[in-house]
């Protein structure tokens, strides 16, 4: 760290070099009294040092809420969302997936999680005016093999799903080329994938969506109940790294998660929060440690919610699925129905 470029008293700069302090983080990690002892300066000098260093780190990073609200720029606006490719689903999410933060899609098996993720991988490649981000996607598989056949089907049928987009635009996009598939079956490989491959792809602008299918699979075999502290540490580290990537590159991260059905006694004993699906209680895997890392949680299920008549979809009552918002800072808890067709996931009004 070149201390000379800071707006500091030469006496302070000399003391910093003598005390072998190399970064702003080291300065902020020490208390005022410790700094005084270490650098042998007066408390006023130390206060000045702390203020200068903080100024350099933070600069003029203040925004008012009004500026956030009026910002319509593609790259910085809070209003930008990644569309799901269906107007009904987008309406539920008030535009789509937020660009910064980890969104979780939880549900039982074959409820449609992979279908929605594949659809997102295609939607991200469309131009901004059609709800995309003009970039590719990274799909990280942790257990199953990547469903490439289904992807091909979806690519062929894009013109049918996205009737709002002119066919010339769809023709021009090379969908298959811009989806990067990574396999990571254990924790170390996953760690490598996030810290090396992912940051490289995102830094080069080649991808602006990350799908992780699924987080729970990484932790299923390796951790017994006695190692819950270690598991929590891993989850927090991954969560923080993903969050940091998402913030730096304004890239949505979609994590797929499984759910457990719980016996009611177990639920009350553990104080776990659970959700009702068809009368039985379910809870997403990975517990509260992982829930704390999320911005938004969505749940998909095969059966329609009790108490709400699925009268809107009489002809496909068997395959009606429900997409519900469990929590989000900007959305009320709500749900909508959808079906999985050949061309993709479509909401039902």
């Amino acid at each position, binding site marked *: 760290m070149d201390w000379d470029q800071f*707006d500091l*008293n*030469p*006496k302070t700069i000399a003391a910093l070099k003598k005390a072998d302090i190399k970064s*702003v*983080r080291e300065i*902020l*990690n020490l*208390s005022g009294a410790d700094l005084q002892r270490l650098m042998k300066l007066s408390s*006023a000098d130390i206060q*000045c040092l*702390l*203020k200068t*260093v*903080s*100024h350099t*780190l*933070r600069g003029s*990073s*203040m*925004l*008012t*809420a*009004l500026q*956030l*609200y009026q910002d319509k720029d593609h790259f910085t606006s*809070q*209003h930008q969302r990644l569309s799901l490719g269906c107007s009904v689903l987008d309406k539920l999410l*008030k535009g789509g997936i*937020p660009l*910064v*933060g980890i969104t979780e899609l939880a549900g039982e098996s074959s409820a449609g999680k992979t279908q929605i993720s594949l659809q997102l991988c295609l939607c991200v490649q469309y131009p901004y005016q059609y709800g995309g981000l003009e970039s590719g996607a990274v799909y990280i598989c942790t257990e199953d093999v990547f469903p490439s056949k289904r992807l091909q089907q979806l690519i062929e049928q894009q013109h049918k799903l996205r009737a709002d987009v002119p066919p010339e635009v769809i023709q021009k996009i090379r969908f298959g080329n811009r989806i990067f598939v990574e396999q990571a079956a254990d924790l170390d490989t996953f760690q490598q994938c996030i810290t090396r491959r992912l940051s490289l792809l995102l830094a080069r602008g080649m991808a602006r969506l990350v799908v992780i299918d699924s987080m729970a699979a990484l932790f299923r075999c390796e951790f017994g109940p006695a190692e*819950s502290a270690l598991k929590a*540490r891993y989850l*927090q*580290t991954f*969560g*923080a790294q993903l*969050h*940091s990537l*998402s*913030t730096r590159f304004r890239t949505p991260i979609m994590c797929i998660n499984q759910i457990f059905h719980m016996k009611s006694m177990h639920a009350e*004993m*553990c*104080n776990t*929060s659970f959700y009702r699906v068809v009368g039985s209680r379910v809870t997403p895997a990975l*517990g*509260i*440690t992982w*829930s*704390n890392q*999320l*911005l938004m*949680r969505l749940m998909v299920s095969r059966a329609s919610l009790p108490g709400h008549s699925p009268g809107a979809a009489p002809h496909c009552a068997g395959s009606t699925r429900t997409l519900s918002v*469990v*929590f989000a*800072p*900007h959305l*009320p808890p709500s749900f909508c129905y959808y079906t999985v067709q050949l061309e993709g996931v479509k909401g039902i009004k």
Partner: protein
Amino acid sequence: MQREVGTLPLAPALRARLAAAGFQTAQELLDTGPCGLSKEIGISREEALEALQVVRQECHGHAARTAGGSGTTRKCTALELLEEEQTQGFIITFCSALDNILGGGVQLTKITEICGAPGVGKTQLCMQLAVDVQIPECLGGVAGEAVFIDTEGSFMVDRVVDMAAACVQHCHLIAEAQPEEDHRKALETFSLENILSHIYYFRCRDYTELLAQVYLLPEFLSEHSKVRLVVIDGIAFPFRHDFEDLSLRTRLLNGLAQQLIIIANDHRAAVVLTNQMTTRIGQSQSTLVPALGESWGHAATVRLIFHWDNSQRLATLYKSPSQKESTIAYHITSHGFRDVQPPAVTPSTEGTELNPRKRPRTEEEKQ
């Protein structure tokens, strides 16, 4: 800041050089900076820095004296403190049950901590408070501004817009019920754009940025003296990974708590923090407890824990110096943070002040 250079307590030789170089006011000196100054008048950088420090002290000292002084120790009796506390403002939350158990609302000059599982409504309450702090005084608010420090990225401006619009509408309804001159005047400036422009948003991506931001807060609050609320949404998030050395974390958190207490006191602001929950594994069962450890529990003056009971959201006042421990239910609607059963607000109801603790103005005038 418009002080003449000649009136500053600097060495006469230095003053002569400044005058010769064309500097007239203290503000010009501060704008130039130490490097520029040393080049302009031919003194060493060290001397320039010392001179600027003196100038800054003078200007701030002057401002502080006119504002009532801060940072110096004052002696006062308990009676004076009691009177001060009773006139202390509260920031209402629009959920009257919550305001009641808190003793009127979120109290100024105190640190309030809100803990809860994800999705229970902590960020919603923070956004609601950032809007409610701006309610004009004649309607029971503190007419202040808000600083929102976001570490998790969960501040969605669209949601704040919904809450602000609902608040403005509510205030207009109250004003219509009691048409008074100052109500009307206050509401002229209480609009959506105005509310949004007085919420100052900072995004901190890790704990170093958060620490740096808190070091800069006193200066910011001196410049924006109307700020009455500082929200840190997600104090736990940046501190719960990245720390092999937990004692460093404890030390940093304690330092942070001390700084926030000083800020709350000096600038008469309420500090609101949100915390996560973590599982503590006991003998026979596991319980959810606030994160960041036992020692962090001493940092906040008031602690609220939000939790679920089936599908009802509940708020428990867990720690408070003056109120007893109790639990109430609350609701989050499209308008924001509300009671479960909204109390009947009809135009004919007497005394429909937003803050039940504040006496209506007409009575005060009679006295």
